[in-house]
């Protein structure tokens, strides 16, 4: 399986479930989904990466692009990720300072509500 995407709304926040590998081949699909969600006025996003098996700089670029889009509407994009193999590329690139990264979807939603 390359990439499987799903999304649902919880407490007014759009949660995107990502499963599989995010690379130069599959990243465009995630990009399209994030753009589509923003176009439909979803500016509070949580991307659940717990089932992501691979993430490269193309995937990082998509996430940064999504973050830029929601911030243009005073929104936010947070991540759920506890896998060290995925967190590694965030650490290498310094993007742990850019994204809110949480241990569970509920934690991410709670943090967003606390920010409001």
């Amino acid at each position, binding site marked *: 399986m390359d990439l499987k995407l799903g999304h649902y709304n919880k407490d007014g926040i759009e949660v995107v479930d990502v499963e599989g590998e995010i690379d130069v081949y599959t*990243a465009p699909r995630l990009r399209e989904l994030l753009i589509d969600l923003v176009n439909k006025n979803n500016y509070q996003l949580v991307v659940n990466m717990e089932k992501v098996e*691979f993430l490269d*700089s193309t995937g990082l670029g998509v996430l940064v*692009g999504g973050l830029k889009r929601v911030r243009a509407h005073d929104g936010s994009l947070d991540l759920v990720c506890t896998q060290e193999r995925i967190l590694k590329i965030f650490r*290498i690139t310094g993007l742990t300072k*850019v994204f809110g990264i949480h241990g569970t979807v509920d934690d991410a939603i709670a943090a967003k509500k606390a920010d409001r």
Partner: protein
Amino acid sequence: MATVEVSFTPLPAHVRTARLVATAVARRSGVDEALLDEVRLAVGEACSRAVEAHRRHCPAEPVKIEMTDLGERFVVVVSDSAAAAGRPAGAGAPAPAEDHAAGRPGAAAGGPGAASGAGGDQGAFPPGFGLAVISGLADEVRVVSTGSGLSVQMSWPSVLDRTGSAGAAGAGGESAPARPSGEPAARPPRSSP
């Protein structure tokens, strides 16, 4: 001569194939399991860079990967031919080899504000970002400008067991069973990477 060579059409779909092959060869060469994720990521970054360069300049030319087991080092070289078609005339002689010591690019992203260019999310990061990521993953990295394109050379340490053949001795059940001298190592069946 490389242990394994792969040439592939410069399509994004094939980058995953290259990652899987490189990881499998790295494992066979005795690279520690803990480093295989880095091999996968670094090779993927190098191949993605080469694929994008070929798609812009020479989409009919294959991207080439050479993977070599040097006993105590596992070396991967990803080479593109993009300069042959895409570089302006008078680009001059190939640049000298640039040695990138293993290190961390740190906040190479510069945050979302670093975005530039009109290439969608590709503009989210400055040019060379993929190479910066590679330098944080591979033990040693060299980027060499050849006459035809760019060659990204990455290497990691591999373990040589006492029998003289590469192997991650004792790691995850991969040690070779005892055997009479002169016979090749009998490897247990492996699951796919």
